[in-house]
């Protein structure tokens, strides 16, 4: 029941925040903040009491859940309202709660019209995302996958910033919605195809994850169905040829929207790959792995190169996300335990660091009313504290040792090396590019000659607290990542076992490389 509450709290909180507008202007903000803090607390509580350590050498086929909640829903098709929590989903739900709190805080002054409705949308996005992380009935998963799009659309379309010539916020929002929705329908077709294949073999309709994992599929069918899932996730991740919506959506979205987009919406697709695409179709995923890793490499370089050429600070950060997600894709399809653990680590690290950078660019926008880097420069002298925070997050984003990003990227590269040495060798060059664009960002915005005189207001207590909290988390996970790795170890081991079964030789070698990683 606790799991249902995780979804219900933001949902009801959103309704309350909307109606709260009639009492006072700050009522929606406080309501939203309270509900997200509650979600975060519940997550921490679950983490404290739950046991997520991996069981030793358990070869049981069924996935193990720390918590589970199910209710018959549409028996005609064997659809259940089935939620479950394991280490991986707990980490991501907690991340959602944390970024939710930040999203509410960073809109405190930025959003000045339609406050109640804004928070309704914000909280409903979070409810949808938490639903995505918890649902293990494929119908329910798809439902949440779609539900989170509508409020995100409104968030960008109504509170976004219109850019120059043709880059209106409505256009960006529509683009975002169309990309994700159309690819989502492909996933629905694939889900149905899988369900009917299962029906044909066993005579039972079921959308349950554990049941569908056992579906016998011919190679071609599995390939097509897997592609349906893969495309849907690839659009959202985004993988390079399908990334068209991301820079626009990021640049046009309000700060809270960007934080949520980069911080958690992109993570839903990586989660989808880990939870569904790989375990449901291990052989087909294995066959696709070279292509997927190639696309990952392409993304790393494409994102990094384009980031170097951006003038808009938020577009720059958006392109760096593409680059970082390229690493995630490589790690996911390398499929060794170490690499998968690295993926989880990088997901969290990227969420924190990109959220930090977007928050900072939002704060700059509030002070300078521009996102164009050509109009910035020399802010180090004019602006207290904020440039220093920027430096920290930029350094985290380029993967400096001591930050969580380093741990994630290093584990991905190290873990993938035994499987695909050449790809790792090329991807490492991408880290060099990361240093270039990060320093470019720093140089253009904060160093160089100042364009105007006069000091700007430093961060107030709210802003300092947000940045400091994020920074501490980044450093803590960078210096002592073990608690996080322990939490997700069980899930990752499970994925690795399924994925690795198709290729035992490689499996053994990776085990040799990483004997007791994450215990």
């Amino acid at each position, binding site marked *: 029941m606790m799991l249902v509450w995780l979804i219900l709290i933001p949902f009801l909180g959103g309704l309350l925040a909307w109606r709260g507008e009639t009492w006072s202007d700050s009522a929606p903000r406080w309501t939203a903040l309270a509900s997200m803090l509650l979600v975060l607390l519940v997550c921490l509580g679950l983490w404290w009491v739950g046991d997520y350590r991996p069981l030793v050498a358990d070869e049981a086929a069924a996935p193990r859940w720390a918590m589970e909640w199910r209710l018959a829903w549409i028996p005609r098709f064997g659809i259940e309202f089935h939620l479950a929590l394991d280490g991986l989903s707990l980490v991501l739900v907690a991340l959602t709660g944390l970024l939710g709190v930040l999203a509410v805080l960073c809109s405190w002054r930025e959003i000045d019209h*339609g406050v109640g*409705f804004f928070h309704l949308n914000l909280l409903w996005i979070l409810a949808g995302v938490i639903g995505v992380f918890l649902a293990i009935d494929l119908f329910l998963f*798809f*439902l949440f996958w*779609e539900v989170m*799009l*509508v409020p995100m*659309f409104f968030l960008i379309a*109504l509170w976004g910033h219109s850019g120059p010539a043709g880059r209106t916020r409505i256009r960006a929002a*529509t683009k975002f919605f169309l990309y994700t929705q159309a690819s989502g329908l492909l996933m629905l077709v694939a889900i149905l195809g899988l369900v009917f294949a299962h029906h044909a073999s066993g005579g039972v309709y079921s959308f349950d994850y554990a049941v569908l994992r056992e579906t016998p599929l011919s190679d071609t069918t599995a390939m097509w169905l897997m592609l349906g899932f893969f495309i849907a996730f690839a659009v959202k991740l985004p993988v390079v040829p399908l990334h068209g919506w991301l820079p626009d959506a990021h640049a046009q979205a309000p700060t809270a929207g960007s934080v949520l987009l980069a911080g958690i919406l992109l993570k839903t697709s990586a989660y989808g790959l880990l939870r569904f695409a790989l375990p449901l179709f291990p052989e087909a995923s294995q066959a696709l792995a070279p292509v997927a890793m190639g696309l990952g490499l392409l993304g790393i370089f494409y994102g990094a190169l384009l980031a170097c050429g951006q003038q808009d600070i938020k577009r720059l950060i958006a392109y760096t996300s593409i680059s970082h997600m390229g690493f995630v894709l490589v790690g996911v399809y390398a499929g060794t335990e170490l690499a998968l653990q690295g993926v989880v680590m990088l997901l969290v690290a990227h969420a924190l660091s990109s959220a930090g950078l977007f928050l900072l660019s939002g704060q700059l926008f509030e002070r300078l009313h521009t996102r164009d880097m050509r109009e910035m420069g020399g802010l180090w002298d004019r602006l207290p504290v904020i440039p220093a925070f920027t430096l920290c997050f930029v350094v985290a984003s380029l993967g400096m040792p001591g930050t969580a990003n380093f741990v994630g990227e290093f584990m991905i590269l190290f873990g993938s090396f035994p499987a695909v040495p050449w790809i790792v060798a090329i991807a490492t060059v991408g880290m060099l590019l990361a240093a270039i664009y990060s320093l470019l960002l720093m140089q253009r915005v904060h160093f160089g000659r100042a364009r105007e005189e006069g000091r700007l207001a430093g961060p107030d207590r709210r802003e300092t607290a947000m940045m400091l909290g994020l920074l501490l988390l980044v450093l803590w996970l960078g210096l002592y990542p073990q608690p996080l790795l322990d939490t997700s170890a069980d899930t990752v081991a499970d994925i690795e076992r399924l994925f690795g079964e198709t290729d035992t030789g490689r499996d053994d070698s990776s085990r040799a490389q990483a004997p007791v990683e994450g215990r």
Partner: protein
Amino acid sequence: MLTATHLLALMPVILVAATVLVVMLGIAWRRRHTPAALVTAAGLGLSLLALLLVSPMAPIETPLMVIDGLALFAMTWILLAALASIGLAHAYLGGFAGPREEFYLLLLSATTGAMVLVASRHLATLFLGLELLSMPLYGMLAYAFHERRSLEAGIKYLVLSAAGTAFLLFGMALLYAQSGRLDLAGLAASLVEPGVWALSGAALMLVGLGFKLSIVPFHLWTPDVYEGGPAPAVMFLASVSKLAVFVVLLRLVLAVPAFQGLEGVMGALALISMLVGNLLALAQSNLKRLLAYSSIAHFGYLLVALAVVNGATLETGMVYLVTYLVATLGALGVITLMSTPWRGEEATALHEYRGLFWRRPFLAGVLTVCLLSLAGIPPTIGFIGKFYIIALGVEAERWWLVAGIVLGSAIGLYYYLRVLVTLYLPGPRMPRFDAPEDWHRRAGGLVVVGLALLVLLLGVYPIPLIESLEWVMAMKRA
């Protein structure tokens, strides 16, 4: 021979027909708007109750009609949709300059026709029902005949509908020439292996019915008629008329093998309907025209159910039909409310809806829910419908149709989103059109809010709908 049971089984239809007489006599005696509306609603309500009484006895067959699960199910929704139309028509006609009471007369007659149509098991009742449904619709669409557009809508519908009827009759004649029978069972028995003539007969009937369903390429009348007709009349046309015609087509396809031979044709029609409907809707800036094109696209999706005839056809078709019906009624209901009371012009242009959310949050919410449902976004009932249709296509492995649905939905989203975002943009200070201040306390307001709740409730918990259809199918087997 007509027995007492038969008479009882036909009671719902008879009650509606009797209400026609009562309202007519009432108008002859004294012209009163509200009582006329109340009597009409009461008649429809009584008929709904009669349906409840009849349902345990089903299926009952008379020589011309059959009261089976499908007929009862369709009649229930016809009556509900007619009630919804009346709820909105009453306030709308409050400002109407000419005589108001005849609208109810026409609406009741058309409802009778629709009920006969869905219960027909004979080409004679099929034809009678269809005409009884269509004739009053001409009057309803041209009800504001001193307005050029309304008159144009009525006449356009009349002419094209007559053309459609000619095709239908020709098709019936061909089928009769082949088999010598007019009842569906007889047609099914004697045309087990349909020849060229039987197939062409079926195809011509499909053309005739396709006109009423506005399937591409027989759709040309739809946008003009939607735009010109008074909003409550359009509501009725979009819901009751299309539902009844689709049900009878479904009956034909399920019963008569000659229609199943047209699977390929139906698939092609489905594909072009969903693509053309959605593509043409993209360019619309008039909400009623946009809904007209969207309805063309929706009947494209619905034809998928007829192009894939298997055990799930009936269930899929009816689920989708209900999802379309509820959402369309809600969306057109909001347009009606915005144009209430009648003042010669309607709030149809998209820019009239700018900022509706900041003026009338709940009304805009209703429209949002209905449009999301039409776009097939969960957790609305429209998603359940889309789920069923895609499931049917995937199960039958008709990948072209599935691809068409996916593509059509993606295109469709674009214009639904455009309308949606308009509702929430900051609007003008002095809007030209607005719903009445107390809309939510009037019958029309209750109707649209009820429809929106239905869209959401059935979207989250579709069991009642699915179970009622399981009952319909169980009855079919019995």
